């Protein structure tokens, strides 16, 4: 195995570590917002490392391009989604428990 393989394996391992850390955070942390924080780390960083590690091994330019397109999309999507969830949570807690969102 050459150095690029080793580097790939290290990066993938780091990525997987972040995934596991994210899940542990999702289980252990006390409230919605902190759990959200943990999850976003897993999403963004974990997937990022895995993509980086694998892109070292990409077989073709097209594959590399797709891999490198994929991560920013995932980053954008999960960050925005987390923001939206957090916003909804805050709105909800301001209105008090039991209130329905669509009731104005």
């Amino acid at each position: 195995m050459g150095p690029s393989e080793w580097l790939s394996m290290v990066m993938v391992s780091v990525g997987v570590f972040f995934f596991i850390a994210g899940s542990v955070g999702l289980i252990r942390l006390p409230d919605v917002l902190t759990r959200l924080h943990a999850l976003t780390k897993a999403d963004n960083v974990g997937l990022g490392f895995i993509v980086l590690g694998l892109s070292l091994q990409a077989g073709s330019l097209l594959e590399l391009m797709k891999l490198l397109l994929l991560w920013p999309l995932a980053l954008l999507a999960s960050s925005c989604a987390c923001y939206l969830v957090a916003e909804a949570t805050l709105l909800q807690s301001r209105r008090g428990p039991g209130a329905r969102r669509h009731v104005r």
Partner: protein
Amino acid sequence: MTEFMFLMAAAVLGSVALGLWRVVRGPTRADAMMAAQLVGSGGVAVLLLLSHAMGRAHLVDVALVVVLLAAMVSVAFVRRLGPVRGDDGTE
């Protein structure tokens, strides 16, 4: 290397399984949404790892589709079912 990638894929899947505990446990709807998101990115990671391990480049396409669809579903979650119940454990 192949074996390593399969094992890593299994590890990501395992962490997704851990996250599912949150879905079942709750207590708020936001938690369940988060877990669904985790499955989205976890699924993508598994697909990418499998793409390498199984030697099938086009699995990256499947991952791309999962990313886009997961984003849409996340928005659907928030827009359709923002947390209706009280937060911080009151159910």
